[in-house]
């Protein structure tokens, strides 16, 4: 429950950041036209030395996808299906033809994830746990890229109060402090914030609202600002 609170705080932060200084909006026309109802999260490519990073990231991707209104396939079951068919390496899975994925899973679209940064580093004055992920949503019926973006979250955001403006900075401090108080697996918690920033349809340039969302059919948050 606490964890949900964290997610909603993270959502807020990104939403607020959107209020402060919006970057250009994505072009959602292909996404809207394809109108995917389900999203298959593929095991992520891991460009970090952290072995558990893919498990953590793919698990945390499920909630923002579901909350955005899409059917998200259960990541561990999907992982087992790939393993059972001899596909144990994410890189090989990302090479599987989209038609084959569509035939097996019946999924409209798949999320191809790349983990660029994961875990704790000690290069700065104090330690920092950060997770950076880029992702691409691909239509499994056509192979077309419907959406792509990148997001980062870090436990060190509390030390940079001035980067996102005083208000945003303070809110980040509140969210991160709560994390530090309650959990030991910081990477897993930061991955939740990263995933939410990246995907949630309640964040700027996130996914469109899916068919199971009460906001289905409405413009994305970033499209509302001219």
């Amino acid at each position, binding site marked *: 429950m606490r964890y949900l609170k964290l997610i909603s705080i993270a*959502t807020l932060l990104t939403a607020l950041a959107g*209020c402060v200084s919006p970057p250009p909006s994505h072009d959602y026309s292909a996404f809207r036209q394809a109108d995917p109802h*389900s999203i298959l999260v593929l095991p992520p490519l891991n460009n970090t030395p952290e072995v558990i990073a893919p498990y953590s990231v793919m698990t945390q991707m*499920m909630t923002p996808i579901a909350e955005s209104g899409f059917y998200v*396939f*259960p990541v561990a079951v999907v992982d087992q299906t790939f393993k059972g068919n001899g596909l144990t390496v994410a890189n090989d899975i990302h090479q599987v033809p989209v038609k084959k994925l569509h035939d097996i899973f*019946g999924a409209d679209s798949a999320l191809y994830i790349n983990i660029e940064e994961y875990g704790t580093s000690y290069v700065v004055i104090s330690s920092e746990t950060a997770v950076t992920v880029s992702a691409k949503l691909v239509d499994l019926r056509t192979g077309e890229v419907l959406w792509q973006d990148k997001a980062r979250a870090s436990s060190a955001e509390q030390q940079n109060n001035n980067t996102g403006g005083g208000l945003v900075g303070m809110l980040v*401090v*509140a969210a991160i402090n709560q994390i530090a108080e309650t959990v030991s697996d910081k990477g897993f918690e930061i991955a939740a914030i990263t995933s939410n920033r990246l995907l949630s349809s*309640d964040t700027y340039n996130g996914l469109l609202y899916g068919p199971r969302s009460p906001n289905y059919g409405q413009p994305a948050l970033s499209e509302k600002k001219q």
Partner: protein
Amino acid sequence: MKKLIATAIVCVALTGCNNTKEPLYYYGDYNSAVYAYLKADEVSVEEQITILEQVIADAANNSKAIAPGLHAHLGMLYFDTGNAVQGIAHFETEKQLFPESVQYIDFLLKSAKGA
């Protein structure tokens, strides 16, 4: 104290952005259970089953919807422990709640029978 101030700011900010929303689903410890399964760490499959049954019970008690994938994941855990009856039952529930899953779950059921 800091927390209080932050909460107050959040409230003000929320009214500004008009962005409040109830979650669509109840998750409980679903994510932690999935993470534990993938890591294959100290939490046994039986314990994971207990956790997920608790999530389902809590959701029912609060009239909340079960998140997509949870019943399929639980079904897989039951199959892992050799309980095909419960495994099939939860796979069927996933299909009922989320017709988007039918093709995949049928594929899994066919594979389970073949094994």
